[in-house]
């Protein structure tokens, strides 16, 4: 088991190095660089651009170096925890994204937990009460939830809340708490704002998981051993939780792997619509303004977060499924 974890973590390291290169290439793709944008902006504003000054800036940001050299420099700094400097904000990237990243992670993980907490019971109920009203309702919810893109759901929810309750929702904090230090009141305020983002980000995943859970459990319930158990007088609830459910839960556990990347994508988009102070809006801004170190670091961090999901799901599968666990121990 331990050697497996170590192996997986080493493998993830390799992927992360690869990832850093890919994010850097992505950031380099747009023609021109941040300085070109800046010069253009200054010219449009009618400011004389000093050649000397530009050269200084180029030097400082390392924009005059060839591609590989720049990458190695960025990557070297990255290893020491230094993500470079944001051009637009004149601030170290780490300072800029600290709290935003924390909020993104919080929302993503909360959504993940909530998705499972809602989807698994409904999926089980749907399968054990096939073709009941609740089953049809869950199926309908599943289809519509999957078909509605996050940002549309956000818009529709905001519209409904605004129209019928007169609240303007959006953001994660009320204005008076926006920049205040953390205290209990701010936390309460955050909790009040959380439901809508959680609903918006979580709906698609919940809808998908309900369908997966229902299908997997239905497949198991049709099998002979369930009938045998029932014939031998095993109590229904015990039978369900002890045998078919344990097998049917496997695809759910392995779904963390794709669910977390999906949630992160969804969060990015939702944040733009709802105006959440998470990394989404920052990323879009950075990409449009070619603020390359900021954008590169964000793509890198978000992808790393998604990869953690893969790792967690693989480890959990090992824990949940004795077949995988024993197969591994036998070979090790």
């Amino acid at each position: 088991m331990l050697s497996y974890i170590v192996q997986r973590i080493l493998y993830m390291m390799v992927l992360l190095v690869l990832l850093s290169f890919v994010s850097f290439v992505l950031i380099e793709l747009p023609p021109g660089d941040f300085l070109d944008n800046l010069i253009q902006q200054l010219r449009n504003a009618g400011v004389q651009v000093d050649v000397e000054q530009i050269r200084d800036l180029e030097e400082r940001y390392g924009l005059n170096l060839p591609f590989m050299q720049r990458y190695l420099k960025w990557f070297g700094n990255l290893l020491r925890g230094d993500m470079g400097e944001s051009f637009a904000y004149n601030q170290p990237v780490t300072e800029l994204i600290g709290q935003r990243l924390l909020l993104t992670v919080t929302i993503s993980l909360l959504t993940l937990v909530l998705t499972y907490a809602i989807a698994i019971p409904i999926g089980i109920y749907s399968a054990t009460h096939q073709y009941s009203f609740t089953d049809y309702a869950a199926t309908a919810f599943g289809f519509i939830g999957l078909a509605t893109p996050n940002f549309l759901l956000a818009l529709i929810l905001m519209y409904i809340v605004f129209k019928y309750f007169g609240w303007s929702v959006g953001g994660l904090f009320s204005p008076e708490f926006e920049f205040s230090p953390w205290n209990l009141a701010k936390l309460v305020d955050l909790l009040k704002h959380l439901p809508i983002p959680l609903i918006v980000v979580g709906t698609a995943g919940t809808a998908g998981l309900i369908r997966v859970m229902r299908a997997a459990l239905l497949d198991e319930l049709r099998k002979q051993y369930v009938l045998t158990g029932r014939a031998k007088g095993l109590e229904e609830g015990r039978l369900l939780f002890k045998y078919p459910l344990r097998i049917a839960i496997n695809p759910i556990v392995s779904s963390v792997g794709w669910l977390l990347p999906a949630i992160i994508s969804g969060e990015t988009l939702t944040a733009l619509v709802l105006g959440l102070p998470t990394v989404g809006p920052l990323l879009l801004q950075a990409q449009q303004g070619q603020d390359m170190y900021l954008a590169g670091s964000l793509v890198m961090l978000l992808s790393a977060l998604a990869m953690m999901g893969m790792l967690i799901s693989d480890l959990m599968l090992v824990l949940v499924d004795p077949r995988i666990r024993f197969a591994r121990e036998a070979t090790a």
Partner: protein
Amino acid sequence: MNRTTNREQETERYYLASSWTLMRRKFFKHRMALVGGSVLLLFYFVGSLFAGFFSTHDTLTRFGDYSLASPQRVRLFHDGRLQRPFVYGLKVSVNPETYRRTYVEDGTTVYPIRFFVHGDQYRFLGLVRSNLRFFGVDEPGTLFLFGTDRLGRDMYSRTVAGARVSLTIGLVGVAISFVIGCLLGGLSGYLGGTVDMLIQRLIEFLSSLPTLPIWMALAAAVPSEWDPIAIYFMITVILSIVGWTGLARVVRGKLLQLRVEDYVLAAKIAGATELSTIGRHLLPGFMSFLIVHLTLAIPGMILGETALSFIGVGLRAPVVSWGVLLQQTQNIRSVSLTPWLLIPAIFVIVTVLCFNFVGDGLRDAADPTADR
């Protein structure tokens, strides 16, 4: 006597039917899939082929006097009497404090809806000039079924025109990922060994990335001064770069199963090259699975285009797509006053739903273990 032969004939027909025939029969029993399929056919027919004919105005025609007009109701009763469908004229009043325009129906002017009228010119399929429209009203009446946008352009016509881009982008994207997925998945499953290992790692890597940030990064790299068609093409490529991995996995899994079959050996002995063995003998063997997979992949691409265009890094005006139309709804305060701007969203949701229904129906039909 007669009955038994009938039955026998039927059984015989069942056993002799090709797998495609069986699939078709099962598919036609799936009610939701049929409904979904019909709606999609209608959308593609109206939106892609005959957008000009079925819309009422050109997408760029501005009605300056009617900016942000609310949708006009099509009515049947005037003065309590049944009439042919008509709309009332619109009266504009400007709120002196907020300068907001409000539109009320003018119950005295009746504009009957006429069919096969002559309106703005368009090109049928981009080739033949025509100005024949399916329906419209006489001047000076207006017909804004879905209201108008900020510049006074008819939202109904724009939604119809947007269907062309939004519906086809998924098809083109899926076609591209189909080729990549089959090729790489095929090589991976068929050759095995190092090639398989490398391609599998690549797939794992790509599918562990959160799609949207990657899409955003790639889309931001498309120069905005490019030709709209070139941008459209680049966006499809971007959507499919991330989209091929699922298909490649399916193809690989199937090929691993099939490559030890006797007919593959026969093909090899007959001197077929590897690519032609995959393409001519292996892929057709599970074509139905591929089609199911593709149907379920299209809605993802449609949603991708909508999302990218919505946040402003995908397609841009003057191109009209559902995502581009939804850009106007970014500000929730304006949306609460002009909810009809959200109408394209309904079309996005319905389209994606229908694709899912059709995909589900196809999956059930293609599954040989399901009941007949």
